[in-house]
């Protein structure tokens, strides 16, 4: 019975992604999704009770300063460089602090509209991922990224530009602030 709990949909998705990245010989992506699968399994198997009592909240000023600083680093340093790595790795402890709080004992009951919206957004995300997968598989089979452009290959020219990198990181961080509710409550 305990083993069956391991068949949480998120575990399946992340293990699937880990094996997919192992197949495409991307060691770092394999490690990221593999570690994520292990982390999720620790939660599935009952370690959900540990953590902060509630989520820390931040004021606009420190959030803005972090976003601007990350944007400046991306603007003035080379893509794929050590500083990009440092900035990205810095967000792991920040993420742990922001997300490892205890779930409320009483959970919100979703409305019909929320359930409908969750399904529709889920189908949208899977569809988008499948479009990317078709492009990726085509580019591998025919060894031709021009005929089968992945999102990465399309964004590469913009992200090779300092301004493009700065804009990307700013939008990426703003989406994180929104998704993880750093300013929500």
């Amino acid at each position: 019975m305990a083993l069956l709990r391991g068949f949480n949909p998120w575990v399946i998705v992340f293990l699937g992604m880990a094996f997919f990245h192992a197949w495409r010989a991307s060691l770092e992506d394999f490690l990221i999704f593999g570690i994520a699968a292990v982390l999720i399994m620790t939660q599935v198997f009952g370690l959900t009770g540990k953590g902060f009592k509630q989520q820390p909240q931040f004021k606009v000023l420190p959030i803005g300063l972090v976003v601007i600083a990350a944007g400046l680093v991306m603007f003035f340093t080379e893509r794929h460089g050590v500083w990009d790595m440092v900035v990205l790795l810095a967000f792991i402890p920040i993420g742990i602090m922001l997300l490892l709080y205890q779930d409320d004992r009483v959970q919100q009951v979703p409305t019909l509209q929320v359930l409908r919206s969750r399904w529709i957004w889920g189908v949208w995300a899977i569809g988008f991922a499948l479009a990317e997968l078709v492009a990726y598989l085509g580019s591998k089979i025919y060894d031709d990224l021009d005929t089968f452009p992945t999102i990465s290959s399309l964004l590469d020219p913009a992200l090779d530009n300092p301004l493009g990198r700065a804009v990307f990181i700013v939008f990426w961080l703003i989406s994180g602030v929104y998704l993880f509710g750093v300013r929500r409550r």
Partner: protein
Amino acid sequence: MSWPVVIIASYLIFIVIGIALAGIGKLRPDALAPFSEVVEYIMQHRITRIATFMVWWWLGWHFMVGETIR
């Protein structure tokens, strides 16, 4: 139509659909809950928080640090 056109068009169509869904959620919350409400609901669960964070963080890593595999 050639493959590049089909693939790029499919990305654009999904982006447009995403914007439309977000708009419908804002304008007709009685039909479709706004995206922010869905996010607030799913983020109640720590497993979803971890999963979402890992995907979000991976996107940053993938585009900024990782090399595009050709």
